[in-house]
């Protein structure tokens, strides 16, 4: 019995040791970026200092003032908020429809799954033309439009909605709720993990989007943070500390949102993966 317990303890210890090692490898680049943003130490310095030497926050101040960072931040926040709101609503509507039985449902699911294999770069020209026809070039709505609904997020919702007992929906319908009210008052409250996953994924995709804003934005004041980063690089090459500070400032909101929603996010991704 004791031998079995010892063996299990060793197994746990070695597993944790391996996980610590992997975490260390994953987190080391982040630590290095943070350290460089506080010291400005050139990445090629040898021997490199592991602990920050004379750290200070002034590279962050430089980034804030040398480029219109607050404006870029505002643009990114507005675009991401639009994208999140649209994803949470539109994906829920689409997913709810896909949980119902109707003729052609299988074909629609097949088409959606097939479309996931088409990279955005291949559809960027028609997307640009449609946005131009709508008169949305150089606008927040135009920036957010292609990320308004994502197929992965529809399936995250669908998996979560399918876990809701059919009898509950039937009871709601008997009580006189419309389909929209069923989604709003029954499905969404029971699928908070899926909502969190939609929020996190749509935020990250919208926040990091570079190609689409690069194509449709002409006014420098409508640029988002990834475009600002590229503009920042074009100003001057030797700005190691400020560049890394910029990277931290771009990454921080995404990391914060993920840390806040990670429990629901993981649950949302894995819901529907197992039965029972």
């Amino acid at each position, binding site marked *: 019995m004791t031998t079995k317990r010892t063996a299990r303890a060793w197994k746990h210890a070695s597993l944790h040791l391996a996980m610590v090692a992997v975490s260390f490898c994953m987190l080391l680049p982040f630590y290095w970026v943070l350290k460089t943003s506080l010291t400005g130490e050139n990445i090629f310095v040898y021997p490199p200092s592991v602990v920050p030497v004379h750290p200070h*926050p002034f590279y962050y*101040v430089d980034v804030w003032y040398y480029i219109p960072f607050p404006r870029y931040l505002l643009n990114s926040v507005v675009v991401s908020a639009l994208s999140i709101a649209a994803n949470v609503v539109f994906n829920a509507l689409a997913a709810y429809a896909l949980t119902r039985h109707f003729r052609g449902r299988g074909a629609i699911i097949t088409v959606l799954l097939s479309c996931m294999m088409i990279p955005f770069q291949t559809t960027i020209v028609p997307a640009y033309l449609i946005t131009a026809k709508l008169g949305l070039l150089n606008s927040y709505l135009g920036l957010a439009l292609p990320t308004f609904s994502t197929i992965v997020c529809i399936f995250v919702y669908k998996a979560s909605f399918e876990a809701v007992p059919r009898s509950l929906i039937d009871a709601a319908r008997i009580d006189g709720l419309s389909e929209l009210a069923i989604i709003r008052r029954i499905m969404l409250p029971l699928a908070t993990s899926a909502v969190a996953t939609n929020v996190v994924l749509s935020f990250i995709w919208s926040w990091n989007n570079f190609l689409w804003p690069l194509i449709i934005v002409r006014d420098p004041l409508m640029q988002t943070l990834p475009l600002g980063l590229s503009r920042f690089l074009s100003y001057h090459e030797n700005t190691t500390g400020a560049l890394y500070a910029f990277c931290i400032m771009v990454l921080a909101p995404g990391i914060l949102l993920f840390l806040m929603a990670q429990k629901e996010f993981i649950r949302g991704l894995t819901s529907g993966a197992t039965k029972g």
Partner: protein
Amino acid sequence: MTRSMLLRAVRHRFVAVPLAIAVAVAAWNVYVAAHDDGIVRGEVVGPDGRPVAGATVTMMEQNFTTNSDRGKTLTRDDGSFEFTDNRSHNIQLRAEKPGVGRSDRVVVRLYFQAQNVTLHEPLRIKAGS
């Protein structure tokens, strides 16, 4: 909504974290608004460590790639000087007096634009420089 429900909602991390950030940002902005008159104070001393009157102190604003003069002032009898129109967060100061010498450029980094600051170390004019 009852008080307990409100408290529970505020304690939820999706509300508490943005709220805490908003409070911190508001507090920081209040602090900035109260300390952004653009006043830069300091003192100039000679090679012997004594205050130098009538020395010219030049303030330069550092940009990404360039430095540009933003103003000059003369030190008072006690060697002190004051600029009241700094709009930058990254400046350099240098003092010089004909016949005495010139100090090194001193970089002054500020936490926000036009932050009021008093130099802890005097600008030290070097003899013969």
